[in-house]
């Protein structure tokens, strides 16, 4: 066993020395491989995120209640009290385990200067539901969670308190503790003054450009508008974008959907009830051609190109070393040994380049750059998932293997007598 390991180590040494033989070529091949693995990693990161968002879970599902057949959805706030109970009427009806109401409030800090720096978009909801009903916030570490809980408590006590994502805060050139006055755009005439009480923790990367507020602050402002102007705000009757409910499993989801669908409470406007994955899929329908192209054209094209890059480098290497390959055969190396040495070279270059590329992308994009800016729908940035480290390994090794199959077979079939008879 030890002698076998020792021999394999010697083979590995030969492979490494062969790879180092033409450093320039190896470097260019590695750089080409790394670039293409990076492209594949970025493409797959976006697709993986979208797949994750649109996949239907079996348990712990979120259900979106929106206005039926209308976009953007507008629901009366009066719907919320019954919807958060899942429109349950009988004692054995399904009730959601959690809920959150979503309203969107956007506006300008200085209405005379419409610019990106002046614009803010806030999600309004029940503050106490933010940690449990907004994606991934339930996965924060203890310190970040405690910080978020403190902010939530403050938002409950002080209706004009808001939490702003660190990047958004930077864009607006504001600091925690400052007050901002927002002139409403979605709700024209509803101008609100906020106190920035905190930012989202850095670990909550997807909220770097997201801001949240207490829904009651907006509802109170709409009520005040009605009193002052003696008529309701044009958007005041239906300020809610959607309600999110959480249910235990798919069976409960189906029962809940039936309960809400059969309820006479939601007729004007009618509501649509669907799982979060399904809702996101419907929303992303407009982007489906882009995703299809990324998945079935761009990804495979890059993989094919990657195989060609490696095939080209290894083919040249094998052609240059026909004499050496023949010599190895003379010395008793079997065709399998020769093939193994050639495959080893390609796999070494492909695997290392793939791992370095994916690992480097993971560190640079996730830790330094704060995600890939790729705004699609409400997703602002994408992050390289942990499994991308395996993608790098698999893509590098896989394409190296495919790319060097023909050169390796060519090396395997070198006929010793042919090579040496030309010399003699």
């Amino acid at each position: 066993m030890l002698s076998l390991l020792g021999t394999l180590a010697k083979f590995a040494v030969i492979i490494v020395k062969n790879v180092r033989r033409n450093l320039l070529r190896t470097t260019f091949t590695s750089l080409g491989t790394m670039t293409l693995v990076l492209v594949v990693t970025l493409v797959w990161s976006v697709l993986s995120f979208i797949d994750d968002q649109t996949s239907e879970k079996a348990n712990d599902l979120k259900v979106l209640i929106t206005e039926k057949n209308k976009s953007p959805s507008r629901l009366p706030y009066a719907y919320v009290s019954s919807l958060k109970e899942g429109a349950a009427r009988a004692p054995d009806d399904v009730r959601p385990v959690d809920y959150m109401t979503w309203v969107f409030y956007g506006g300008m800090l200085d209405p005379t200067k419409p610019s990106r720096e002046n614009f803010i978009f806030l999600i309004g909801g029940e503050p106490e539901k933010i940690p449990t009903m907004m994606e991934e916030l339930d996965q924060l570490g203890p310190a970040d969670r405690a910080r978020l809980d403190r902010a939530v408590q403050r938002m409950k006590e002080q209706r004009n308190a808001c939490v702003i994502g660190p990047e958004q805060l930077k864009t607006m050139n504001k600091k925690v503790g400052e007050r901002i006055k927002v002139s409403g755009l979605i709700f024209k005439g509803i101008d609100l003054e906020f106190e920035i009480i905190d930012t989202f923790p850095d670990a909550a990367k997807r909220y770097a450009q997201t801001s949240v507020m207490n829904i009651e602050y907006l509802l109170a402002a709409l009520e005040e508008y009605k009193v002052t102007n003696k008529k309701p705000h044009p958007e005041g009757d239906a300020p809610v974008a959607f309600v999110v409910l959480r249910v235990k499993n798919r069976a409960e989801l189906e029962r809940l959907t039936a309960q809400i669908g059969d309820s006479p409470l939601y007729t004007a406007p009618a509501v649509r009830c669907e799982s979060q994955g399904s809702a996101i899929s419907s929303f992303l329908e407009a982007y489906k051609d882009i995703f299809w192209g990324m998945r079935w054209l761009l990804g495979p094209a890059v993989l094919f190109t990657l195989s060609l890059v490696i095939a080209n480098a290894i083919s040249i290497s094998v052609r240059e070393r026909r004499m050496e390959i023949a010599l190895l055969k003379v010395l008793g190396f079997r065709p399998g040994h020769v093939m193994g040495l050639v495959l080893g070279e390609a796999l070494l270059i492909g695997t290392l380049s793939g791992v370095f590329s994916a690992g480097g992308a993971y560190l640079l994009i996730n830790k330094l750059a704060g995600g890939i800016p790729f705004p699609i729908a409400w997703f602002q940035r994408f992050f390289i998932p942990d499994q991308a480290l395996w993608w790098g390994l698999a893509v590098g090794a896989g394409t190296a293997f495919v790319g060097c199959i023909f050169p390796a077979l060519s090396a395997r079939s070198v006929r010793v007598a042919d090579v040496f008879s030309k010399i003699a």
Partner: protein
Amino acid sequence: MSDAEPIVRVVGVHKYFTRGAERVDVLQDLTVDVADGEFLALMGPSGSGKTTLLNLIAGLDTPSAGEVWVGSELISQMSETGLARWRTRSVGFIFQFYHLLPVLSAYENIELPLLLLPLSAADRKKQVMTALELVGLTDRMSHRPGQLSGGQQQRVGIARAIVTDPTLIVADEPTGDLDAKSADEILKLLDELQRGLQKTIIMVTHDPHAAERAQRTLHLEKGNLVEQTARKLERA
């Protein structure tokens, strides 16, 4: 031929190649015996078939007809993999242009054939060091081929040929790329190997001086054996 039992028996061997529609007969009904421990030289003009014969005896090629025996093994009917296995243990090769791997040191080049044998690292090292001592290159073992002279590279080639302690050593123009002094040293070394280790050596050469080192010389012409010269050698 000496009185010893033949280690190599080439029986009625025919070898032809095809070039397009043309058939080229390289060896024709050739029968040759080589005794165990004999130093045999093969001479002849270019295209006479001497390298082809050497390749057949060394298991690098198979005959179109006839049989090639080495010891008790009928190598002319072995598969490619079988021949490769057999070559590892039974044949050492010495080439005109040395054919050392440029990325490996002298030590690593000599060790190459041993990687195919079930030996421990310690045993491999012992055999490589023995071969290096025999060719007098222990002080150059870390050098790469490019850092060695032609004569030294050929010594490395010889060390690689003997490191597995093969039955047979075949040498194709081993002095063809060397100056007279280096060539003489290499021939002397082969001579010592043959006498000291009782190795059977078959050497292809164009050089009559090199052939004089051999106990017997076979002259080939157009694939036929045309002359055989045996000599009693004065050993230094």
